[in-house]
């Protein structure tokens, strides 16, 4: 794997100067590699990973399972791409199994999610049914375990 990408995926908060030092390649080279990864559509962008309990005081998050009728509607891609345009939609996946699309949405409150479902989603041609589930509590997010942050605090800072 591209060493720059490998380092990014490890999740340490490093800037391009630091990455350059670590990989012994200079900041400019790191930046041009990142530009290339973006150009290739491999690296989509950066987001900070926040503790969901901090976010939860401000936003609610839900997953919505959506059943789709494809006849006469242009197929999954057309519908999924349309749904993905809404800014409330954080991610959108085509799934195997009992429903077709899995959509993660965030909104200020429960009513806004409800509004999104019945005013927006339900009106899209081809959407046959939805099932909405709200997130209650997070235990692990994007590889970060949230519950055991204090687990290593007893480790001595100097040991033989």
């Amino acid at each position, binding site marked *: 794997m591209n060493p720059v990408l490998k380092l990014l995926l490890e999740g*340490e908060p*490093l800037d391009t100067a630091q990455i350059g*030092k*670590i990989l012994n390649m200079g900041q400019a080279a790191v930046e041009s590699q990142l530009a290339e990864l973006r150009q290739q559509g491999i690296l989509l962008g950066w987001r900070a990973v926040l503790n969901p309990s901090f976010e939860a005081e401000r936003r609610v998050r839900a997953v919505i399972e959506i059943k789709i009728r494809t006849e006469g509607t242009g197929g999954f891609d057309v519908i999924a791409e349309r749904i993905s345009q809404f800014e409330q939609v954080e991610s959108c996946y085509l799934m195997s199994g009992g429903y077709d699309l899995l959509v993660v949405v965030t909104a200020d409150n429960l009513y806004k999610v409800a509004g999104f479902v019945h005013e927006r989603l339900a009106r899209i041609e081809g959407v046959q049914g939805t099932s909405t589930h709200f997130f209650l509590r997070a235990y692990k997010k994007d590889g970060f375990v949230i519950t055991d942050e204090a687990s*290593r605090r007893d*480790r*001595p*800072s*100097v*040991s033989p």
Partner: protein
Amino acid sequence: MDDSGRFVAHHVASLPKSGIRDFFAIVSKMKDAVSLGIGEPDFVTPFHIREAAMAALEKGRTSYTDNRGTLQLREEISRYVAQNYGPEYNPEDEILVTVGVSEGLDALLRATLNPGDKVLYHEPCYVSYAPSVKLCHAIPVPVRTTSQDQFALDPAALRAAWQPGCKVLVLNFPTNPTGGTADRKKLEEIAKFAIEKDLLVASDEIYSELTFEGNHVSIASLPGMRERTVFLHGFSKAFAMTGFRIGYACGPAAVIDGMLKVHQYGIMCASIISQEAAVEALRNGRDSMLHMRDKYRERRDFIVRRFNELGLKCHLPRGAFYAFPDITSTGLDSLTFASKLLEAQKVAMVPGTAFGEAGAGFCRASFSTSYERIHEACERISRFLDSLPQRK
């Protein structure tokens, strides 16, 4: 006033305190210090191993075990050692499960040394070797290793250090704090010497899985050595299980029997919970171990390169997770360098002299930490070096 010191035995009172403790006391009170002083894995024990310990508790497996350790664990150890190191040990009477290698080495020394016996070991070395020997009323005989040899033990130096009365030779490859390793050729010469002088070899191979260059060779696997070697190993480093306090000794039955006496009266047995976790580590821990080893290697390459760029000459450690840069170009001795660095830039490194006289002129930097911390530590060290007037 506490005058209870008069009860402490002379040979205990005369032992120096570990040089590491003083640093720990300062660093632990310091805010935003960056510590390169940590002698244990940065990783939490892989979850499947922790889960095995939880399962042991759940099932109520909370009793004593056989003094030697559970037969199940000894069988796994026998298989693992044969597969990865060569020699085959009988789980019935040639394997003893210990509370880490520290207890294993202590039991071995106490089981074999008579007062006045001498013990050869290479220096710089782990902090417990000389004190453990002295606690047996025996005499430590250090053999200096040097950065020119990448801190591998030079058989000629060993021969020169030998004196009448030497009974045991302690080896530790890869070495804490230098990352030194010994290749087959060197080990063969050492083995020949051990046979010639009829030495019992205590081989502490706790870092053996963390060998980055070439293959680790155990001296116990060389011809004529199995019958005079006690192979000491454990789970702390390879499987990030320091807090489980679990290790083992493999060797000829009569020596293991002697160790068993020390162990059974002093310790009884290792914790059954740790023993259950150890079984899981040996059965299914290889992938996580290899993953951690790769991370250590990457961090090693970075820190060693940075030290050399900063003008602190540093050999490439071939194993373990410590860099051991030469700090003599600063004009400071190890302790002064480490103290001033801590005071001025809040970076903790352990002075080489904590690992014996031969460590003078060096400091130990653990790279068992994140890239971010290593990077930050090196930036601070760079600023510190710039501030030194005597810097050449």
